[in-house]
């Protein structure tokens, strides 16, 4: 009887310790994130609009863009916003198009982010992705013939 009581007590102590540790590691809800989003039009459509080559890309973006089949990039919009956990940050581009960036979780320099695309005449598209803080990431926008090839360059600090 004594042994079983001891085991129950020990497991309770362990469980409460684990819970406390988890609470300590959880990010504060007021943690602020600086979102730097640049949206590019890529391919022949960018060339038609007068943008030739990768002149409008930064050095980091250029190295990442070398993996893509496009050779012409035109900067459509560039926005810098601050947001917090579970608070969507909206970036509008093109005609009635927008992207909602919602940070979901932040842990050990890694971010879990939900991207939601709202494109004209189409359903909304969404995806949850993991990002590394302070690094440039290129993301493909849901492609449509009307919209063209858009690319989102995202950096979250």
């Amino acid at each position: 009887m004594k042994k079983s009581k001891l085991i129950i007590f020990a497991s309770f102590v362990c469980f409460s310790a684990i819970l406390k540790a988890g609470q300590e590691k959880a990010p504060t809800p007021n943690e602020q994130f600086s979102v730097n989003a640049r949206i590019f039009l890529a391919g022949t459509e960018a060339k038609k609009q007068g943008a030739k080559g990768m002149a409008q890309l930064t050095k980091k973006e250029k190295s990442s863009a070398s993996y893509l089949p496009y050779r012409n990039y035109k900067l459509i919009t560039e926005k810098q916003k601050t947001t917090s956990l579970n608070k969507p940050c909206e970036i509008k581009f093109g005609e009635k198009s927008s992207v909602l960036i919602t940070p979901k979780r932040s842990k050990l320099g890694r971010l879990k982010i939900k991207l939601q695309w709202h494109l004209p005449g189409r359903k909304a598209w969404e995806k949850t992705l993991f990002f590394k803080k302070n690094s440039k990431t290129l993301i493909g926008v849901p492609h449509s013939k009307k919209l063209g090839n858009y690319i989102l360059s995202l950096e979250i600090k």
Partner: protein
Amino acid sequence: MKNKKQKITLAVDKDEKADNQLSDTILAHKKISETVKSAYQFSHSDIKMKYLAGRVIEEAKSGRKQPFFQTVKDIWFRLFGVHSLAWSAALSVVLIASFGFVLMKKYVKTEPKQLESFVIFQTQEGESVVRYFNYRSVSKNEKI
């Protein structure tokens, strides 16, 4: 089934009685003879043939035209030997629905549920990594 058999036997009886009673004008009616002929051409069973012939003669005697559903039933009867009106109606619905489904698949463009895209990120060593993923379409009722 019993009712059907009774109906068929009745029709056959009527057919036999009517053979004697039918006037020359009815027999000379082109439409009737043609339908009877076609009924004989399509079906191979004697009972089926007599059933159809009985129906035609009955119609000629009463002087009424075949109702629409009866015509549909006859078509199914001649093609597949379906006696029941309910079965023939059900088969018609299935046929029309499958035809509509094939047409819809061919001509109605539906958006895919998943859309392929890419993400390029840099590792700690500075190398770029490309990953492919699928976007998920969000339905209208779903909260965004």
